[in-house]
């Protein structure tokens, strides 16, 4: 028994120690990347930032700086891709918003975005205002709040009807949070950014007819992949096949 406890403790120490070492390495790469950026060595900066991401860790600032580095290299597709990724972690960062929209403004546009109703836009803005982390925490905190308030109504001996009504409302709001969280996850799953300029084809074959242009930095819905090909849908609803190296999942 004592042996098992010691093993678990040792394993925990190793995990924590390993995580700290990884964090230290990531921090070192981050600082080196920043130095390279400041000296105008954007390729080098990209290498350092990418090294952090290859290890599986990262932060909104790393993705933002990587986006900036690509922007300076005039690789708008990669810049927008990393800004998009950063927005999922730090959605309310004003610097990020400014750079992201500036990068978007430089992208050629072949299609108008679809018209959305007021309600839909409000709902999407509300979803985008928080990161998936925050939505997950929000859903749990709401659940706790629902539990506490419902137990309070029991303890305070509210009439059954009032108690049921209060519980119903709280549960409904909690379910709304859960729904928002699920939709946020769903939205984050199926989108990609074009990292190069190409033509989307009707079929996943090189000799197929071109259907529409895919501009570098354009956001598309990633419908499915088959071998080296990916089926994408442009915001105007047009669907086509492109080689996978032209799109990267956000």
């Amino acid at each position: 028994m004592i042996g098992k406890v010691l093993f678990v403790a040792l394993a925990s120490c190793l995990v924590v120690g390993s995580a700290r070492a990884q964090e230290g390495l990531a921090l070192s790469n981050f600082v080196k990347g920043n130095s390279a950026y400041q000296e105008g060595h954007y390729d080098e900066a990209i290498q350092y930032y990418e090294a952090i991401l290859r290890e599986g860790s990262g932060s909104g600032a790393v993705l933002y700086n990587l986006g900036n580095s690509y922007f300076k290299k005039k690789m708008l597709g990669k810049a927008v891709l990393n800004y998009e990724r950063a927005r999922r972690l730090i959605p309310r960062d004003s610097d990020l918003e400014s750079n992201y929209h500036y990068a978007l403004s430089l992208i050629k546009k072949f299609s108008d975005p679809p018209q959305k109703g007021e309600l839909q836009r409000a709902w999407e803005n509300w979803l985008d205002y928080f990161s998936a982390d925050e939505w997950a925490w929000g859903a749990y905190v709401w659940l706790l709040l629902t539990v506490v308030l419902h137990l309070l109504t029991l303890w305070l001996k509210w009439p059954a009807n009032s108690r049921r009504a209060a519980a119903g409302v709280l549960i409904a709001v909690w379910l709304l949070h859960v729904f928002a969280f699920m939709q946020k996850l769903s939205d984050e799953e199926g989108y990609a950014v074009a990292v190069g300029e190409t033509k989307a084809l009707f079929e996943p074959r090189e000799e197929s007819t071109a259907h529409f242009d895919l501009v570098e930095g354009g956001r598309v819905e990633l419908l499915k992949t088959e071998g080296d090909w990916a089926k994408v849908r442009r915001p105007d609803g047009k669907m086509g096949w492109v080689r996978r190296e032209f799109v990267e999942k956000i």
Partner: protein
Amino acid sequence: MSASLSGRSAKSHPKGVMLGISARVLNVAVLALISIIVFIPSGHAQDVRFEATVDAKTISLAESLQLTLTVEGGKFEDAPDLPAIDGFDARYVGPSTRVSIINGQVSSMASHVYVLVPRKTGKFQIPALSVKVDGKNYTSSPIDIEVVDAAAAGQQPALSGSGGGSVDIGDKIFVTMSVPRDEAYLNEKVPVTVKLFVSDLPIQDIQLPQLALDGAIADDGFEHQQYQQVVGGVQYQVVEFKTYVYPTRTGEIKLGPVKITCGLMFESKQRSAPNRFDEFFGDEFFNRFLNTYEKRPYTVQSGDVSLKVLPWPTEDQPADFSGAVGQFNFEASTGPAEVTLGDPVTLKLKVTGEGNLRNAKLPSLGNSAEFKTYDAQTKEAPGGRSSEQIVIPQSDTITQVPALGFSFFDPQSKSFKTVTQGPFPLKVNKPKAGEDFKMLQFSSAGQKPEEALPEETFGRDIIFIKDHPGAWRDLRHPWYAGWGYRVLILLTIIAWAGLVAFFEWTHRLSSDTALARRLLAPKKARRGLQDAQRLLAESKNGEFYDLLFKTMQEYFGDKFHLSAGGITFANVDERLRERNVPAAIRENVRVLFEDCDAVRYAGSGPGEGRMETELKRLQETIDHLERNVR
């Protein structure tokens, strides 16, 4: 809602004031929290309902009627204008709004109240009324009203000479409207006189006249004076209102009718049942003091007046004529007369006189190679209009500010006239050596010159990188995607359900005494049997049987929810039979009762071997009942 909940909460904790207060406070806090959480982000939607109601459907001629237009679940866009209602004069009293929360439902009611004063007896109908709420039209149902004779209701207006019944007051109060001529030119200032004649009638609160106009506009407000005048042998108090109208189109236009609303005093007798004071002082005494005077709105209306509006002549119309009609003087001046190049010169203009300057533009200097000019600031001046314009000479060769003219149409001479002022001499000096020429810019008020700031033009680029990495995340495996998060939620829900079940169970036990006693019965019995076992070992016969009987009595009492006095063999046996308990068990019970009674009352007791049997018998009985009988 919160008040009623607080009341219940306090009632449910009668033992402690502190508990009552804390519960009440907590109730309100929880309710408020839920309300804030739920209502603030989501808002609420309600069905909109509109209705028109009156406070009585039958009134006397001397009474008034209150008409209330109510919108529930929305807001009026404007106070509705009532259409003409046959048999009534209407007056708007004011708005009111009410918000209520009932069973958690928030509802708002907005009302507009009108007073309808009957003009004659008969049956009338308030027509269906329409209002606009949030862009949609809503219509009320028509309302039938009957106006009966004033005498029947015991009320009469406080008019001299009135003897009850309906009163024609048309010759006691009326209003007239007049203009001095039948023709006028477009935009000409035309005086309108409105006179309110009142004779031998108590009135108060005379409102300003409401003048209906078609093809003309009027000045805001009225000048008024009061005097006496005899008309047709009758002396009237006259309130005279004077204003001016300005025709806006040519042809025949209609001025009026004009309406004046005032408060008419009515005498209203007390209708309460006679009391001791009436009996003591008598009717006359109280009639003097208790008769009240009630003010009712009354609207009088004049006829309308036609006016023929002539166009301006087309010949000799000056190019700078901008619509000024009347007789005017035009004055102009500049200052200072000597400036350094780049310094401003102020051009002051003033037009005064009798007529209409509403649409007229005062002359101004335009931009030219000689002068840089700024927009003139025009304002109303006593008897006319004035303006100031800043101009800056652009060369030291300039010697004068050009002449300016003001053109208007004179309806008396039926011709256009132009008054010209200037040119104005000006000396422009060169700047002194070392002084640069400065271009000045003026604020929107045109009063204070400021140095012009150079325009900033920069490029656009991205914002610099971040120095701090911020919170590190596992990008491949976010924490919420693992099982931990789901298990945490599941455990919280299970804990919630458990706590709710625990609460329900304890609540049921506290409210269902029979259940609580039945559940506790075996536990208590087990304790009694253990004690009996001890007494058996100590050979304490009397105490053993006392305890055995007590244990048995308490067990059956708790099991079948019987009072202590009701526990006899007959009662217990009846309940055992009802529950189909086998005869052998019932026999055990009978023997136990008999043996216990024999020892307790007769003092004769069986031996130790029998005591052990009795103990086992009771144990078996209880075990059987716990296993088979609920």
